[in-house]
């Protein structure tokens, strides 16, 4: 298990060479999307909220509006760039929250064992009985509109996936002799857990977390599309598509298709990277044994 620093570097270099083109493209795309979202005020050609009825539904390719305008004359490219902010930030919030919840639950269940473990595992089963979108909709119905309720609900909904993984890895790892050795040496339970268990769980967590990001993005965009997520004047890709619905029926679909493709390509990229990370973890065993 222990590798020297040069060996680690060599392994990292080896893996870098094996990184397929699809993974590089996916990473580049995500960087561009995140970068344009971050720098939207500097890069965007227009203001996201300036309406202009003269320019309404200008088709893509119109000078000054390269991706066209929506039914109120707002620049589609500008709005997709600004929309990237909430579209990416909110799922990130879901992933971080659900990781915190899942890691804590999984570690506590594995380390405490016995009745605590049984109760926590049962709780995870119950959360599994709710499709994530349903849980988010119940939260919106009860707590009212806005992003806070669905973000928390989705975090709860995804936590058991991480919780189960963390629990099983922690149980395996906890049974190894070195863990017992640390305990005999008098190291505290918390220290052993944080210092030695967590790093062993980390790679699996990163893979699962990446995939959860994709699910969260789709769920949150779906909610915004249904009018249950982002509230105007804020906008994300889902709410942009929702506003484009009537324009689509009038035969001017670009103000909906552009954010739709943004969702699709972002999720494809996230999945490609998530699977690559997951794959190199399962491949790691082969490499070392």
């Amino acid at each position: 298990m222990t590798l020297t620093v040069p060996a680690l570097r060599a392994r990292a270099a080896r893996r870098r060479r094996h990184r397929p083109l699809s993974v590089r493209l996916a990473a580049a795309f995500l960087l561009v999307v995140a970068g344009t979202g971050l720098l939207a005020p500097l890069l965007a050609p227009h203001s996201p909220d300036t309406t202009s009825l003269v320019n309404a539904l200008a088709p893509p390719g119109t000078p000054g509006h390269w991706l066209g305008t929506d039914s109120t004359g707002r620049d589609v490219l500008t709005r997709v760039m600004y929309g990237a902010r909430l579209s990416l930030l909110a799922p990130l919030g879901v992933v971080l929250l659900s990781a915190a919840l899942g890691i804590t639950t999984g570690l506590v269940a594995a380390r405490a064992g016995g009745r605590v473990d049984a109760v926590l595992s049962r709780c995870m089963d119950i959360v599994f009985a709710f499709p994530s979108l349903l849980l988010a909709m119940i939260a919106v119905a009860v707590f009212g509109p806005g992003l806070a309720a669905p973000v928390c609900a989705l975090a709860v909904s995804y936590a058991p996936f991480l919780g189960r993984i963390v629990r099983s890895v922690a149980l395996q790892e906890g049974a190894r002799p070195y863990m017992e050795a640390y305990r005999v040496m008098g190291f505290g339970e918390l220290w052993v857990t944080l210092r030695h268990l967590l790093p062993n769980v980390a790679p699996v967590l990163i893979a699962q977390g990446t995939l959860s990001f994709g699910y969260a993005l789709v769920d949150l965009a779906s909610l915004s599309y249904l009018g249950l997520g982002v509230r105007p004047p804020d906008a994300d890709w889902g709410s942009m598509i929702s506003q484009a619905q009537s324009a689509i029926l009038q035969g001017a679909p670009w103000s909906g298709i552009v954010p739709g493709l943004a969702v699709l390509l972002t999720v494809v990229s996230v999945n490609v990277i998530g699977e690559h990370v997951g794959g190199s973890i399962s491949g790691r065993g082969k490499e070392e044994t």
Partner: protein
Amino acid sequence: MARALSAWIARRALGALATVLAASVLIHLSLRLVPGDPVLALTAGRRLTPEQLAAVREAYGLDQGPVQSYLGWIGGALRLDLGASLHYQTGVSTLIADRLDVSVPLILYAAALSVLFGTAVALVSAVRGGAVDRIAGLLAATTTATPPFVAAILLLATFSVGLGWFPATGAGTGFADRLWHLTLPATAMAIAVFGVLARVGNAAFAAELRREHVEVARSRGVGGAAVVRRHVVRGALPPLLTVIGVLLAGLFVGTAVVETAFGLDGVGSLLVSSVTRRDIPVVQGVALIAVVLFVLVNTLVDLALTFIDPRVTVGGITR
């Protein structure tokens, strides 16, 4: 063995029942998680007389203790009475039942499309390999990442507005007309499910094709189709069935997005409009049905696996 099996089935069914009960408690009592007075939060912005407030409180069961109000609700649910909608002033069960003739065909249509095309593409790509496999892999990766509402607007823009082949809204009347109206919505729902099935199926079939008994059968001259039918498909069934169960169970909630996108008056769009109006009795009723279906389908798939694959023995999969 038989006794152990029936004991296992009973345990599994009891576990599912316990999960559903716990989930129903959560659904019913979720309203009490709201900080402060939930009635004031729900009726925010409206001026109501004390009598009206008391009526709302009674409608939500908030005039009773949590245990009493839960027992009243779940007792009614067992008699198919899910309370009354605050918006429509009619029974929640009637509201839902009236919309099943749109949602049920939609779900079955989407399920049929995704399972049929998903497994077919998975099988062909696994058996053929090479370029076919690579193209199928690309197709699966793209469709997996296509959320139903994105699929819906792409289909609307292309096949409804662009080509005029299918209607953009409405559910139609009569069997053929309904099928025609539901084709685009069902396709929008099926696309992502198709992608997942094509990938999981491909992996399962490919793993079976590499197994020793399949290679032996082939080397002894048993025809390709016979081997695929007798060994590959049967061997790959358990993982495939598990995924199909999970995906199909999720379709019920998936109707929310697609029915809204295509202007269909089904259970899903009822759920969305009720969430918007904060018509809690309807939301709780639909949520209860969704959870029961979700747990039921997953439990049935688990049980079916024990009969298909004898290696799935009591206490879990042994291999």
